[in-house]
């Protein structure tokens, strides 16, 4: 690669001191990972495989026990430089949809007025037009996720970690949001690292998919998806290469689960 990856992890290891009685727990074991600028990369793995631990390290929330993380080939302060959207939408119930979306800007010192203005102009694209003054508890789960995504987008991070953002949604909303996310990503070309336990979701969205195994978490396999973009649910998901990759990844995941069991 001529230009360095936007985000690179080398030999990331994380060990937690054991809880009462038990020895230390190794949650991650030598994870290597690289995401090129504007690339969409997914990590699939069973629950408890250390995906969230990995994201906490990449977001700069926790220090790794060993290994390092590089931004554009350089060690850098990650906290505040990487966008992080955890599984729960974590919208503030005391802020309207619009004010939640504008939070990141406001925390950066942008005036409330201007922050709201910038958030407002993005509402249609995020399917939130007309809901700016609603409280988060008054809108659907899909809207809440889009509002949380808008908050992450507006915070000005061009590298974003999305931790199972659609995990809690019903199947229909989920598919709708996957297609929507692809459109947004195609327009903005952010660098996205996406965690999911849904192989189909990972293949449909990503340029590359990493398969993680659990306890300790490590990357077992990486595949280039290689399906043409723009992707569409019908043509893409019925492509024989898609079915092929899906079968391979599922087989691998099942082996991992059995080995861990």
């Amino acid at each position: 690669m001529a230009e360095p990856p936007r985000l690179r992890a080398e030999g990331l290891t994380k060990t937690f001191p054991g809880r009462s009685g038990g020895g230390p727990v190794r949650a991650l074991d030598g994870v290597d990972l690289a995401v090129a600028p504007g690339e969409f990369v997914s990590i699939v793995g069973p629950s408890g495989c250390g995906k969230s631990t990995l994201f906490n390290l990449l977001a700069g929330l926790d220090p790794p026990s060993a290994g390092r993380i590089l931004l554009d080939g350089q060690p850098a302060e990650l906290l505040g430089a990487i966008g992080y959207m955890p599984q729960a939408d974590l919208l503030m119930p005391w802020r309207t949809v619009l004010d939640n979306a504008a939070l990141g800007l406001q925390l950066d010192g942008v005036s409330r007025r201007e922050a709201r203005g910038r958030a407002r102009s993005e509402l249609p694209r995020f399917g939130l037009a007309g809901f700016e003054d609603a409280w988060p508890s008054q809108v659907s789960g899909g809207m809440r996720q889009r509002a949380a995504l808008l908050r992450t987008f507006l915070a000005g991070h061009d590298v974003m970690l999305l931790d199972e953002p659609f995990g809690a949604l019903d199947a229909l909303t989920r598919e709708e949001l996957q297609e929507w996310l692809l459109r947004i990503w195609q327009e903005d070309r952010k660098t996205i690292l996406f965690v999911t336990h849904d192989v189909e979701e990972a293949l449909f969205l990503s340029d590359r998919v990493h398969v993680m195994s659990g306890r300790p978490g490590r990357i077992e396999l990486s595949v280039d998806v290689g399906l043409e973009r723009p992707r569409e649910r019908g043509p893409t998901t019925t492509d024989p290469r898609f079915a092929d990759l899906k079968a391979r990844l599922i087989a691998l995941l099942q082996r991992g689960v059995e080995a861990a069991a």
Partner: protein
Amino acid sequence: MKGDGRRGFSLDSAAMRIVAPAAFAVVVLALWQLYTVVSDVPESSLPAPTEIARAGWEHRDLLIDNTWVTVEEILIGFALAIALGVVLAILIRSSRTIERAVYPWLVVSQMVPVPAVAPIFVIWTGFDLRPKVMVVALVAFFPIAVNSIDGLRAADPQLLRLMRTLRASRWQQFRYARLPAALPFLFSGLKVAAALAVIGAVFGEWVGSSEGLGHLILVLNNATETATMFATIFVLSVIGIALFGLVILLERRLLPWYYEGRGANRGVSGPAADAVEIGARL
């Protein structure tokens, strides 16, 4: 209260929430009136409601003058209690060391019987406004402090982590997350404190005072002016209810998300919701 189909008619409507307790009050007052007529209970023990109303009207100037005195004590004491409670809560939540050192004593302070302490305040400050304000603040600050401490713990730790990835400073985490998350708790404390504040003012006046509704009760008691005493108690209750209503009004204005967002009264239901509803209308 949705789906409460125990009765043939709806108890859900807002009108019923006002009408039902009002009707009950009328029934109780009527029975009371009837009792004073048919029994030979002396008026000095239990005056009839109509007699209480008459005496109250007759002495309205006396009642009004003393009402302002007591209201002033309550409002200043209540404000002091809020300041004290909130500042203590923030201090305790800002440092583990302060929490360890202060929190147990905060609880112990509630074991001290305030009426027993009140005379000491009088020794310190004399017979003016100050000892009453101090008693009010002393009884009212505790629920405010304890609820605020719980409230300042209530912010989702996940949200605070998210805010760090959004470059939020410690102050911003407080201002944008911890504080708003604490407000519903603060208001729970304020509602309890509102009731206690009135009790505190009466105690304060009993210990040493030359004016105020509490003082008036003592004077009327000596003069066996029972009907006017009842009228005074009525006014004290109205002050308490008004203060409670004020807190709820403020809560609705400051925390619209707490009411609209969750659908009215989610989190409070049944009688508590009705009390809130009635309080909000007063």
